[in-house]
């Protein structure tokens, strides 16, 4: 033996050091991977929130308007129909001219009028029609500013950019600054965002139409998918004898769960719209497509909820003379219901976030009206996000992020509900 015991020991020690280093490295890789994924989560949320929080506030301008009878009600009858016909644009223009008497040139005046949103006229009209006593009076009202004014007020337009490249000219900036200095320009909570439908003008656009569209779509989805999914799960878990037929169904369900959602959109387009002639862009068709898409998820979760009910329950019921249907409907189903509901809520949360198949069936059309039923044209929240994000107007960026925050808020609420349900009602046997 030429190698001394010391040398062997040294070799082992070196080897051990190497192996421990490898151990630490390996563990570090894992830690890095976890940290990276968590960083992604944080980065994603901070980006969305930092871009979107400003969308919840909107710039308003205070005007000193005078509802002169010859503009608002030239006939002098104070009839609502007459008042609705009044020239409120002239009222606004007069108010602006009074505020900035130094502006006299035509082109400049046009720019000055352009500081306000087109909705200002409608808002005044509504006020006067609702309260005819205002005619002849003057009052201070806050009206919506145009999107570029809003952006400047929020500091999203920089003076450093050359004048011809930005949406707000130096002169307009001067006016806005003057209004701000005299406290006639203010950022307020953006109620309109939650109370109006889509619009081509960013400052007037809201999510109510999309929220309602999502609501009707999910309503159709849950009404169809929950009973069908539970029934299918009950059959497969409680009644079916294992044979080729049930195997085929089972493989089918598992495969359907992994089919890309856009393929369901193609199915919806070809079958529901082309073949059955259902209306395009309607929550009804969207709900049908999402039903087919979420059904596998609901069946799978319902089955595991049924599996969790111990066989002794069924046996006890059968022993007391109940039929299989009675045992299931009186005993197994109520016990499995919390688990099934949890699965259904999670399935609905997925359906709420889904947009690709809905693009196929025409739910991307621009719909300004808030939908009123399952057959009226509508869009849904995620598709609204898609629509706004592809709009060239820079003011839509913060709206998109704000809409995403609304969407994530709903998803969070649904998932919290599912967790709550699980913790409250789940029974361990």
């Amino acid at each position, binding site marked *: 033996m030429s190698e001394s015991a010391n040398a062997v020991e040294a070799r082992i020690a070196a080897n051990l050091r190497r*192996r*421990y280093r*490898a*151990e630490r490295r*390996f*563990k570090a*890789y*894992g*830690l890095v*991977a*976890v940290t990276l*994924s*968590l960083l992604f*989560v944080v980065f*994603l949320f901070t*980006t*969305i929130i930092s*871009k979107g929080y400003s969308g919840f506030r909107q710039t308003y301008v205070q005007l000193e308007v005078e509802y002169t009878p010859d503009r608002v009600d030239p006939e002098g009858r104070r009839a609502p129909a007459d008042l609705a016909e009044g020239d409120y644009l002239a009222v606004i223009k007069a108010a602006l001219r009074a505020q900035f008497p130094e502006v006299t040139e035509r082109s400049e005046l046009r720019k000055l009028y352009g500081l306000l949103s087109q909705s200002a006229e409608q808002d005044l009209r509504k006020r006067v029609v609702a309260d005819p006593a205002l005619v002849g009076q003057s009052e201070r009202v806050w009206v919506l500013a145009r999107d570029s004014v809003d952006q400047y007020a929020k500091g999203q337009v920089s003076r450093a950019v050359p004048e011809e490249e930005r949406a707000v000219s130096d002169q307009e900036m001067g006016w806005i600054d003057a209004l701000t200095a005299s406290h006639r320009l203010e950022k307020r909570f953006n109620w309109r965002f939650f109370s109006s439908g889509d619009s081509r003008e960013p400052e007037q656009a809201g999510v109510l139409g999309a929220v309602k569209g999502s609501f009707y779509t999910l309503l159709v989805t849950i009404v169809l998918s929950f*009973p*069908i999914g539970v*029934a*299918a799960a*009950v*059959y497969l878990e409680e*009644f079916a004898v294992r044979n080729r037929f049930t195997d085929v*169904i089972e493989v*089918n369900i*598992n*495969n359907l769960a*992994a*089919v*890309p959602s*856009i*393929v*369901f959109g*193609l*199915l919806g387009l*070809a*079958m529901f719209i082309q073949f*059955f002639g259902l209306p395009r862009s309607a929550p009804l068709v969207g709900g049908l497509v999402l039903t*087919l898409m979420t*059904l596998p998820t609901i*069946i799978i979760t319902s089955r595991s909820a049924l599996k969790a009910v111990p066989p002794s329950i069924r046996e006890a019921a059968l022993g007391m003379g109940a039929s299989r*249907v009675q045992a299931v409907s009186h005993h197994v189903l109520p016990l499995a219901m919390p688990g099934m509901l949890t699965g259904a809520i999670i399935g609905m949360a997925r359906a709420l*976030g*889904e*947009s*690709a198949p809905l*693009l*196929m069936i025409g739910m*991307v059309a621009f719909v300004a009206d808030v939908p009123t039923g399952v057959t009226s044209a509508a869009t849904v929240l*995620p598709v609204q*996000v*898609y629509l706004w*994000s*592809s709009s060239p107007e820079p003011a839509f960026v913060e709206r998109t*992020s704000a809409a*995403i925050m609304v*969407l994530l808020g709903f*998803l969070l609420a649904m998932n919290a509900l599912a967790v709550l349900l699980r913790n409250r009602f789940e029974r361990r046997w």
Partner: protein
Amino acid sequence: MMIPTSSLVALIVLLAGVMYVGGRRRAVSLAGGRGGVQRLNSLPGHYGMLVALWCALPSLAVVLVWNGFDQRVILDTVLGHLGQGATSLAAGERGLLVNDIRNVVQGNVALAAASPEVRAAALEWRHLQDLSHLAVAVLALTTAVVGGGVAWRLVAPQLRARRAVERIVEAILILCSLVAILTTVGIVVSVMAEAFKFFGLVSWTEFLFGTHWSPQMAIRADQVGSSGAFGAVPLFTGTLLIAVVAMAISVPIGLFAAIYLAEYADRRVRAVTKPLLELLAGIPTVVYGFFAALTVGPLLRDLAARVGLTIASESALAAGLVMGIMIIPFVSSLADDMITAVPQSLRDGSLALGATHSETIRKVVLRAALPGIAGGILLAVSRAIGETMIVVMAAGLSANLTANPLDAVTTVTVQIVTLLVGDSEFDSPKTLAAFALGLVLFVATLLLNIIALRIVRKYREQYE
């Protein structure tokens, strides 16, 4: 008289409720009052239920079938009455005409504003629609009354009502579980039918092996680009390129995260980290798309500009990167399942032989879990291929045949969306091409899923 479908259904349900009470009462009275109930074969409620089901089911079926087909029948009748002119129209023009008529019928366009031909058709449509509503209401209610009446007459103490009701219930359950199969059949039939129409216009060899994709067809034959090119190879390579980038991000990160969480992290860290990771899985893809298009794309472009590279702002890299982030939780939770399924005895044996923790993981646990993990990764690939919103928002539209992730590429799903969104008539090769792409997508993901599920299932059985 106009009865909307929803109130018709409500009416039928109400009628069924009445029938339930009627059936129950009859059973009790035939048994000779409350005291004689034990002479009945089943509980009184079962008799009531039987009558209610006989009342509601056939008539609901009538409503469903009628509503499924009445629009088509009306359309065909109206078009038939428009005469020779309408039937000889090209498919596209007929579609426009139908749209016009429909707009008038639904009141989107004023009746007076329409051309006389359309006006006549719309009036006939409305008339037929009213007639159809009335007919279905009469038919469904008659069916309900007759069905319920027959069952009511059948009620007798010897009638095995429970068995009869339960047979109906089981039939309904079977019907519901058939929906899954029907969906698959529906996908295959509808997508295939359109795809084969497409292959009648463009040969499938050109579609599958052609390298030039420009589906925009000019309307007149003499314009430039009048014949669209439908070689889908650039789409396939683009899809694969983005999927490869996504997998290059998600597989290592997801796998290592799963290993760390399953093998190293203590329970508290795991309890906090896992739900946070699953948060990534719950975020809608449209949010990722927005994130990719507005944040990651420009960020990558600026970074690349700093080191002297030029990246297309709609590069495959940006879309793939964000898609990778989206798939991380998918990979990690599947891998986690597979790793925790490896029996503890294998780990104990390895550790007892003096292996370090990482050696045990690498040489024993991962090797034992490998088939399962491979299956999970295949599932993740199929997700990456089928993912739509991220690529629609962050990847390009131009079909480049390239393997460079810094270039802009387009994918199968992007093309399906761009071909089908917007108003175009249904029978042009452009729209049909979307269905051919959809067929390819469906078949590819189906194969991946079948293989993956088979591997995963086999692996699970191994340790059960």
